[in-house]
């Protein structure tokens, strides 16, 4: 049932002039239709991993296979059409002078005929709810809107995977909700696989599966519920545990009769209400 779209086997990568491997023999699979979160503190190798997946960097050893195709300099352009990337800084990935030009940029590169481009730009912008901003210039948009345009730009190329490389870290809470909500809808509607690379565990807690990176190697893999059971271990890795999980743990320490961990505010509030009504 689980179909591996991307497979990493013993991938090793080292930056020039550095002694330690940025990515140290990492192996895992990315399955079709899942939301995979890769977390880790700064310098844990998670961003290098994203660049390896997109062929922006090449591993020194090991293999990366995308849909059965070995990622190499010959196949990289095909792979980039399969894997779209949204970066951290909303401004520094906006190439076009207007919203529609920016969405069209990737299509122009792919040599898509103009008639088809018009349809795809329209469709992609509708999908991210930015179709009323067609001729807007980037400096009139908010960060969240710019990131949604970036998602539309990726979407127009019809990729099977979208990588969010710290895409929400420069946004305010409202912008973050906009972007994550959009991505969640896309997953449901188009069955797109999402890999989100982040140090925000709140964001990661919504994923189907999580990978924790530490000092270049894969530290732990599992569902968010499993990973958050580690608690103290995560803190020593430099990661901040989401508020509802922390609160629920502290309440339990104080003798409040809650059971299990709570990933979201909603879960915690529901359980607390249940508890009060039975008192």
């Amino acid at each position, binding site marked *: 049932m689980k179909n591996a779209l991307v497979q990493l086997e013993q991938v090793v990568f080292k930056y020039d002039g550095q002694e330690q491997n940025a990515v140290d023999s990492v192996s895992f699979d990315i399955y079709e239709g899942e939301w995979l979160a890769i977390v880790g503190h700064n310098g844990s190798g998670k961003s290098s991993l994203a*660049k390896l997946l997109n062929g922006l960097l090449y591993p020194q050893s090991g293999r990366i296979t995308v849909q059965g195709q070995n990622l190499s300099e010959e196949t990289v352009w095909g792979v*980039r059409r399969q894997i779209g990337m949204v970066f951290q800084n909303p401004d520094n*990935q906006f190439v076009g002078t207007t919203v529609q030009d920016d969405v069209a940029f990737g299509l122009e590169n792919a040599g898509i005929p103009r008639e088809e481009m018009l349809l795809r730009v329209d469709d992609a912008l509708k999908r991210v709810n930015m179709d009323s901003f067609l001729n807007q210039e980037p400096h009139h948009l908010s960060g969240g809107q710019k990131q949604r345009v970036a998602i539309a730009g990726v979407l127009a190329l019809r990729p099977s995977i979208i990588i969010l490389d710290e895409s929400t870290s420069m946004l305010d809470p409202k912008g973050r909700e906009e972007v994550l909500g959009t991505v969640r809808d896309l997953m449901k509607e188009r069955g797109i696989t999402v890999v989100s690379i982040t140090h925000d565990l709140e964001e990661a807690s919504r994923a189907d599966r999580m990978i924790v990176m530490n000092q270049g190697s894969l530290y732990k893999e599992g569902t968010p519920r499993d990973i958050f059971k580690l608690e103290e271990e995560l803190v020593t890795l430099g990661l901040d545990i989401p508020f509802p999980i922390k609160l629920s743990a502290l309440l339990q320490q104080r003798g409040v009769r809650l059971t299990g961990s709570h990933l979201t505010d909603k879960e915690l509030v529901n359980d607390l209400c249940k508890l009060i009504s039975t008192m």
Partner: protein
Amino acid sequence: MMDKMIFGRYVPVESPMHRMDPRAKLLMVFIFVFIIFLANNIPTYVLAAAFTFIILRLSNIPARFLIGGLKPVFYLILFTFLLHIFFTKEGNLLFKWSFIEVYEDGLRQGIFISLRFALLILITSILTLTTTPISITDGLETLFNPLKKWKLPIHELALMMSISLRFIPTLMEETDKIMKAQAARGTEFSSGPIKNRIKAIVPLLIPLFVSSFKRAEELATAMESRGYRGGEGRTKYRLLEWEGTDTVLIAAIGVMTVLLFILRA
């Protein structure tokens, strides 16, 4: 501040000139700049002025924008005018007051040269007032496209231009932010002796440069990940449409050229 400086130049109103193909406008301006030098007597100058006037009327640009465009060069025009009046000593003496002598040819030359100046400025500002910077870039790219045969990187130059245009507001915002940050740390940008003020530019420029390089690198990565690999095999989203009116404009400037050749002294 920034809206006035760069984008304030384009006036977004509806007009026949606005609708024209940027290539037609560019060609027209280019030819006009050359043929204005053919004018050398009253009929030819009247003709050139009439042509400019018709173009202005077709552009629907409010007069204050045109006057605003002429203002910076007003003193230059005045200066050339006076230069010709005082230093051309041919033809009949019209006027004498102590050492100042004004001759007929001087007056004529003065008027002609200032008029030529003003017409040039007006026609070129019509181009920027009725065409968005990005359309001008598109127009230039297609006009210069044949030069690719001689290995000139036309696509790359056009892309550079459009990316620069896109980043101007972003960098302006950044400059503003850095200025505030440095002012908060005690840098004086607008007062004190001139030497100090020039020195104050350094802590503004260095962070700006550093961040621009960082931006450039990130932009290059983003472009590459979106499949950019040069102009080869690329299609274009923006479409330039050459219409009947564009041909008319080019025909008009052609007729102008012929008429100027016939009428010039």
